[in-house]
């Protein structure tokens, strides 16, 4: 009994550490993102620590709640958003280690948890009584519904294929880490897996409301959309939640497609150096995925209209995902 209490205590402690690291690296990557995009656009850009300054300043500022807003929902939505993003962190493998709650939930749970921050944004939009926020919330909902199908399809396709080939329980990140997809497929399957990866890379900016898929916030159209009425602490919570969500989301892609660790390759056996090396390697992988799907895309494209974005996700991405799925299936048959 004492032992289980002890291990529960350790888990809670680790959870807090993971959350702190998630917030820290989320904000750090946001800073790097802003700096690099600025350089791509020929600007100097803010210093990398700017997001930390933003958050600390926002925390000091007054939180204004509109008179017509549904007050409790307006205050609850940012907490829900941050909670959703934080719980997500506990279910995905980070820093080359298995997820903290590995075994008590699988990839399907992660897919459900991914919806919570988006739903919190929708709630925030509808509860803030501003027409801009209402339109933003509608757009957020449409985007959510559009990318959900290709997202689930690509994740399930990879898991199903791995499970089919290895016979291990398919919907666990540990299975995917033990049997990376690239080792299980032939040339046809590799093409299929690349297509599925592309679909996921395209969904990341949509999940994170970044250009070209930032219709829900759309500065020049909706002046901030869902978050237009938020300020102070409430806004800071959304700000942090979005940064945490970015890390978690990219970690999922890394866990699905690049679950490799560096320490076995370069032959570091000792536990602590290996953990450090793998942790740094994980950060590099996250950076690379973010660089391609968030930073370059943001600098190279204009914002889509909501119907165009919906079509891109619902038709183009789904078709590409289906093609990837079929190629993976063919790979199994031949």
């Amino acid at each position: 009994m004492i032992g289980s209490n002890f291990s529960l205590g350790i888990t809670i402690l680790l959870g807090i550490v993971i959350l702190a690291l998630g917030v820290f690296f989320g904000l750090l990557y946001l800073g790097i993102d802003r700096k690099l995009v600025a350089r791509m656009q020929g600007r100097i850009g803010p210093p990398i620590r700017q997001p930390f300054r933003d958050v600390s300043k926002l925390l000091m500022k007054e939180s204004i709640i509109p008179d017509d807003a549904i007050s409790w929902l307006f205050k609850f939505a940012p907490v829900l958003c941050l909670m959703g993003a934080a719980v997500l962190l506990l279910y995905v493998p980070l820093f080359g280690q298995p997820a903290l709650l590995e075994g008590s939930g699988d990839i399907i749970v992660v897919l459900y948890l991914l919806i919570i921050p988006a739903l919190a944004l929708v709630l925030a939009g509808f509860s803030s009584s501003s027409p801009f926020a209402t339109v933003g919330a509608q757009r957020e909902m449409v985007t959510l519904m559009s990318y959900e199908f290709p997202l689930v399809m690509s994740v399930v396709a990879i898991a199903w294929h791995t499970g089919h080939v290895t016979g291990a329980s398919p919907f666990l990140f540990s299975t995917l880490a033990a049997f990376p997809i690239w080792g299980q497929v032939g040339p046809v399957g590799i093409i299929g897996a690349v297509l599925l990866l592309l679909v996921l890379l395209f969904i990341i900016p949509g999940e994170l409301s970044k250009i070209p898929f930032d219709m829900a916030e759309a500065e020049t159209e909706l002046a901030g959309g869902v978050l237009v009425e938020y300020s102070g602490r409430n806004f800071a919570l959304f700000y942090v939640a979005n940064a945490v969500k970015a890390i978690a989301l990219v970690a999922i892609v890394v866990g699905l497609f690049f679950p490799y660790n560096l320490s076995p390759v370069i032959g570091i056996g000792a536990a602590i150096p290996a953990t450090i090396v793998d942790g740094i390697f994980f950060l590099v992988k996250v950076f690379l995925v973010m660089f391609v799907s968030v930073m370059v895309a943001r600098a190279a494209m204009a914002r889509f209209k909501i119907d165009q974005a919906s079509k891109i996700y619902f038709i183009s991405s789904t078709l590409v995902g289906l093609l990837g799925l079929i190629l993976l299936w063919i790979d199994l048959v031949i």
Partner: protein
Amino acid sequence: MSNIKNMDDTKEVKTSYTIPIGPIHPALKEPIRLDLSVDGEEIIDVDVVVGQVHRGMEWLGMNRNNPIQTIYLAERICGICSVSHPFALVMAVEQAAGIEVPPRAEYIRVIIAEMERIHSHLLWAGVAAHEIGFDSVFYLVWKVREEIMDAMEYLAGNRNSKAMFQFGGVRRDITEEQFPRVRKSLDYYLSIFDQLGNIFLKDKTINMRTRNVGILKKEDALRLTIVGPTARASGVSKDARQGHAYSAYADMDIKAITPDVITGKVVGDVYDRIVVRLLEIKQSIEIIDKCLKEMPSGAIISEPKVAKLLAVLKKAEGEGIGVHEAPRGECFHYVRMEAGMDPLACWKVRAPTYANLMAIPTMLKGEQIADVPIAFASIDPCMSCTNRAITVKQPRKGTECLLDLHELSLEKTRRLEAEFDR
């Protein structure tokens, strides 16, 4: 404007809610209000409410010590058209007072005006890219724009507010030694012109956001008397430089540019407006080049002594109009001068946006909310130049203040017509 619009659109529309764009909104660079009635994402009705930045410029201009001071004021009507307004004003006063302008001054005026067109169109291109969320292009274009700003600073001593105009000529000469610096800028723009064209006309996402958006048909453009690039993009071959051929433009053989030169057909959408403005940049480069080649020698001002000029202006009696094709369209100035009176007796300014705002409801109806920023920006609106009146005291409920004004102006037009007939 709201009441004028309501008069021809009396049918009731069912709306779910209204979105106010403005007076302060990221999509707008200057204050104006667009009240959008929307159903989901679709725009059902648009009401344009102007009058947020009235500065009483015309009144100020009529109350200066003398007309020369009004030139400085005209230069400050618009931060971007800081050549167009003084250009139109000096032409109006020269007509009223019968002042001759030496040919060399005409050429210098045209060079400066065309340089302004290049800078204004590049500025617009950047703003348009920002409106569709393409910030990389926004920064790129504004970086490119610096070259012409530098050239203008070199010629006039100032990036903006160039203070080149004087009644009867210009205040500063453009000498032979200054030509290479100007040519360098022109060559720079010619060398990057194809790249700019590639970005704006071929980029996939820009195409997705601008094709078939904010369409203004030719009939509508004619009916609403739209001017400038907005009208030309709808296929109306109208250009003050061609139609009036004032100043040195008469030597330049200018043809109004319509988008079918590149696209083969006129749609009248935002894309066509990009095409027209891009081609006009090239046209301006050619005009400046021709001006530099053919610039006649001689005086740059007919009366260099200000005191003597003021005496002439004080004696002048009569009316004059000045029409200049500003980057946004036809800029129109009217002056009346009375003998023995120091300042202008009357000064009326019509900036191109005043005419082009009429197109906004037609352009936006049936479009999505996402199209509002780019469609509105596509006329290159300039609010502080446009505002001619302000409602200082809100009318009591039930009184139709603007409608009364409309009636009054109709009455005055009829009275004037009757006077002329007599």
